[in-house]
Structure formats: structure tokens, C-alpha cells
């Protein structure tokens, strides 16, 4: 179970840990929690899988990874899980999701994200991925990102009365 204090804590931890010797004590002060209480809650939220990961969130673009490709495939429903799990094991694949196809205008159901330092490298990696995962015959498209209009961490706007219904 996740309570109202957990939500406040998640919102705070999402913004980032302060760079001080006792960051959880610091966070606790703002929420009227002891350092120990904060640590217990964070450990539990991680164990529950609510916090998917806790660590350094790198800025790919600043590190020279300016080629960001979303690759979409039209995969047979009977194979999608197996292929999805295979695709996700390649180190250059950042995300791998199944989403619903939308008829002929958008027939794709498997999505993966590849970050690379340039388009050529990304396309090479994609070829390797297609060969390795049996995707050469699948209909696919590569969508490189161009302008970024908005990007922010998923800070959910939860008010206390909404929070009670969740999870």
C-alpha cells in the first residue's frame, strides 16, 4: 500500500536528492519525517517496484548521444512477447514496449528506442538488431527525433484526495 506521505516523498525524490552528506535527513526535514522513516519508505517503494530505479539520471544529449531513434515494428501477435524480450536485451536499446496497432494508418505494435552518437551508428545497430531478432521481414519505420518541445521528469500531479485510490 502507498499512503499520502509516500506520494509526497516520491514527488520530492523525483526532483533529485540534494548533494549533501545526509540527503535523506534533508528531505525528511521538509516533510516532517525522520531520516530513518524516509529511508524505510524509499527502500519499500523500491522493493515494491514503484520506484523503478534510483540513481544518476544522465543527460544523453549532453554526453554526445544526439541521435535518438524510435523504431516501430509490425510483429505477429503470437511472437511479440518473445521478440520484445529479445530486443530488450541489446545494450544499445533503451526502452522496449508493446503498444496497440492503429489499423492501416499505423500498423506497428512493438516500439524500441535506440540512443546513439550519430544516425549511421544507430542504423547499423538497428540492422544488427533486426538480423538477430528475426525482424528483417517485419514492416518497420525509424523515427529520429528532431526538435524537443518539452521534456520533464514524470512529476505526477497528484492531490491528496486522488492519491487514496491508487495502487
Amino acid at each position, binding site marked *: 500500500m502507498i499512503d499520502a506521505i509516500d506520494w509526497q516523498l*516520491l514527488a520530492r*525524490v*523525483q*526532483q*533529485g*536528492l540534494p*548533494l549533501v*552528506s*545526509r*540527503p*535523506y*535527513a534533508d528531505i525528511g526535514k521538509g516533510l516532517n519525517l525522520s531520516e530513518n522513516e524516509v*529511508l524505510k519508505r524509499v*527502500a519499500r517503494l*523500491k522493493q515494491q517496484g*514503484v*520506484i*523503478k*530505479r*534510483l*540513481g*544518476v*539520471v*544522465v*543527460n*544523453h544529449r*549532453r*554526453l554526445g548521444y544526439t541521435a535518438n531513434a*524510435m523504431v516501430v515494428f509490425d510483429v505477429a501477435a503470437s511472437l*511479440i512477447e518473445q521478440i*520484445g524480450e529479445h*530486443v*530488450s536485451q541489446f*545494450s544499445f536499446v533503451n526502452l*522496449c*514496449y*508493446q*503498444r*496497440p496497432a*492503429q489499423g492501416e494508418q499505423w500498423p506497428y*505494435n512493438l516500439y524500441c528506442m535506440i*540512443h546513439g*552518437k550519430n544516425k549511421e551508428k544507430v542504423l547499423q545497430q538497428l540492422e544488427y538488431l533486426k538480423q538477430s531478432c528475426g525482424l528483417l521481414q517485419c514492416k518497420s519505420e525509424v*523515427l*529520429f527525433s*528532431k*526538435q*524537443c*518541445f*518539452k*521534456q520533464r*521528469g*514524470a512529476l*505526477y*500531479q*497528484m492531490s491528496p484526495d*486522488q492519491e487514496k*485510490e*491508487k*495502487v
Partner: protein
Amino acid sequence: MLSPLHKQLLNDFQQNLPISATPYQDIALSLGVTEDDVLLAFQELQDQQFIARIGSVIAPNLIGVSALMAMAVPTENLIKTAEIVNQYPEVNHNYERDNRFNLWFVLIAKDKSSLQTVIADIELTTGYNTLYLPLIADYFINLGFEIDFDD
């Protein structure tokens, strides 16, 4: 320039920052440096925007409901349309991609009905239909992003 310490901090602590009272001290011990070295190096990485933050990434759809959305917008209307979309607080990523579906954004709302309301409103205010692409399954096992520091 990135020092060896900067690189280790970027690569080795994406997944499992120690959940302890003194995480930076723990990192320092594991790397054989001082806590002050770690704090200073992280501060430098943050100041130079190599890292967005040291914090949590929350599992999709555990909190609220999210969906990837796409729109096919004529190029001359793209920026104006992107600005309209950005005004919705439910939008947290919004990108141009090189495709006939050229505007891609992620919506997060508290439940499915509020999500549908926002989608209908975005279609109305922009004048374009959307592709609604919610997550069905997440296959990704995050083992961390290995940064290649060469070239």
C-alpha cells in the same frame, strides 16, 4: 573534461544508488575517494548538465495513466501546434520526429477518463486527430545505459 571519477559516477550509479543515510560516503568508499570528492564531482556534473538529477524513475502506469500520442501536423503549423500541446500540464514529453506523424508526446493523467478528456480537448484546440498508443507491455529490463566515452 570528464575525469575518471566523473565517468565512474556517470556509468556505475544509474541503477542502484545506495539507500543508506550516507549514499555519497558509500560511493566514495567503493571508489576509494573521499565523500567531498564525490559531492564535488556530482555538483560539477550537474552544473555542466551531464546529469539531469540524482533521483528516482517511477514505473510507468503505477501512478496514474499514461499514453504515447502522435499527430500528423503540416510542417508550417508544427511549432504553433506544439505550443498548444505544451500548455497542457498533462504533457511531459513533446518531440518532433521525422515521419508523417511528426509530433509525439506523452500524456499522464490521474485516471483513464481524465486522460480521454484531455485527448478530446487537445484534438479540439489543435484541430488534429491523434493516435492513442497506451502501453500494453514493458519488455525492458533496465541494466543501465553504458556510456561510450570515446570520440
